């Protein structure tokens, strides 16, 4: 008999597989980590919503047997804000690509963080616009190629974790599709917190970013992660030159400021008591 993993429990298996992602695309790996983290939560799946924008990564909800919402490009957090306010008890997970989250969706990102809105964000960061075929995203590293940056990207890139931190998230962490156990662990930890949380899941897009930047083989993308992402405490000790070529991962923020939803529910209480 063929075995099932915990992941398979949550897949809309009969309808939607194999999924549309390219061979070796890291998005599937992240989705797996996400599902294992949800499973660990032991919540009723009717009480889980998975919400996304538009992009390859944003196809995630399609495959999952929860309340799923595939919105418009960049706006997932705004939709999710409505869902969460209507259903304060629901675990509202928002998955977005890097372009979706901090490109077109950047304003919703910083405002959701500022409000400390109780949403659990997982950003699938492949440093490029995958779905549309490889244009530069706000996380494409300087100098790297994209179909709209054939001469090498002259823009600087956002550090998604730093943006989340500086605008007020309660929990911020980064892992990669290679570091799959850490990834699952961070996602799980974020689900256990209130307020706005962000896990940046670094991934690889062999088809666009890879093709343009000599990482065409799926394995090469994961090799890169394996060799260049190191834990924050170790990274901090690197020389400045080394810091240019290596990337830190780990947990960057872990605080417990009161989130918008809690504050609003308190407001209702106090208004209704007439004070």
């Amino acid at each position, binding site marked *: 008999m063929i075995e099932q993993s915990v992941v398979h429990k949550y897949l809309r298996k009969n309808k939607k597989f194999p999924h*549309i*992602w*390219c*061979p070796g695309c890291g998005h599937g790996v992240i989705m797996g980590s996400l599902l294992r983290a949800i499973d660990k939560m032991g919540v009723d799946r009717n009480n889980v919503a998975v919400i996304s924008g538009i992009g*390859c990564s944003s*196809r995630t909800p399609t495959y999952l047997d929860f309340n799923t919402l595939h919105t418009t490009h960049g706006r997932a957090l705004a939709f999710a804000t409505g869902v969460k306010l209507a259903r304060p008890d629901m675990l509202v997970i928002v998955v977005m690509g890097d372009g979706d989250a901090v490109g077109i969706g950047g304003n919703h990102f910083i405002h959701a963080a500022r409000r400390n809105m109780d949403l659990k964000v997982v950003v699938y960061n492949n440093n490029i616009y995958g*779905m549309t075929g490889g244009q530069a995203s706000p996380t494409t590293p300087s100098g790297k190629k994209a179909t709209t940056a054939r001469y090498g990207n002259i823009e600087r890139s956002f550090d998604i974790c730093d943006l989340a931190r500086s605008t007020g998230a309660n929990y911020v962490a980064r892992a990669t599709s290679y570091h799959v156990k850490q990834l699952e662990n961070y996602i799980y930890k974020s689900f256990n917190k209130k307020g706005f949380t962000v896990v940046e899941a670094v991934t690889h897009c062999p*088809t666009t970013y890879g093709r343009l930047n000599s990482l065409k083989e799926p394995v090469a993308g994961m090799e890169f992660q394996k060799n260049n992402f190191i834990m924050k405490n170790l990274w901090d000790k690197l020389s400045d030159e080394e810091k240019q070529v290596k990337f830190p991962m780990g947990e960057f923020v872990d605080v417990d400021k009161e989130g918008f939803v809690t504050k609003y529910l308190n407001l209702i209480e106090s208004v209704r008591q007439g004070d």
Partner: protein
Amino acid sequence: MKKKRVEIRLSGSGGQGLILGGVILAEAAAIYDGKNATQSQSYGPEARGGASKSEVIISDEEILFPKTENIDVLLCLTQQSCDSYVCGLEKDRLLVVDSFYVKSLPKDYTNVISIPFTEIARDEFKTPMVVNIIAIGAISEMTGSVSKQAMEKAVLSRVPKGTEELNKKALHRGIELAKQYKK
């Protein structure tokens, strides 16, 4: 096969170079043979990694309706593409498949030619890269819609520098195959 409007569909998987193949066919006809030609291809996430197609219309007259309506030849380099795209082909039209990848042939088709493109590329040319050129060589010859000279010019103007000879050879090998397998 001598018609005013010839419609060709090339299908296979993403990496097999069939879009370029279609462009070369169309350029040969339009630029070097002075005919009219269009080329179009499948787009979109559904195509990702899976079956992909490239369509070429060649005509002596102005091409108005821009899509294929009566496909004359369908090339399938993979089983998946064959399963997906054969539906557009009338039963009596020409179906050309790769004998290595396409094992289960669609039913009731009366005009099927199975050619070992992949194996020839691998064995004779030592690279799968030329499979598209071999294939369009064969197709061009079978439809008779483009001249050999035009095909040659079109191939040379499109392939990467340094691979000209290789591809020219592959083209001619394809043309030869067409003659060999012609019914």
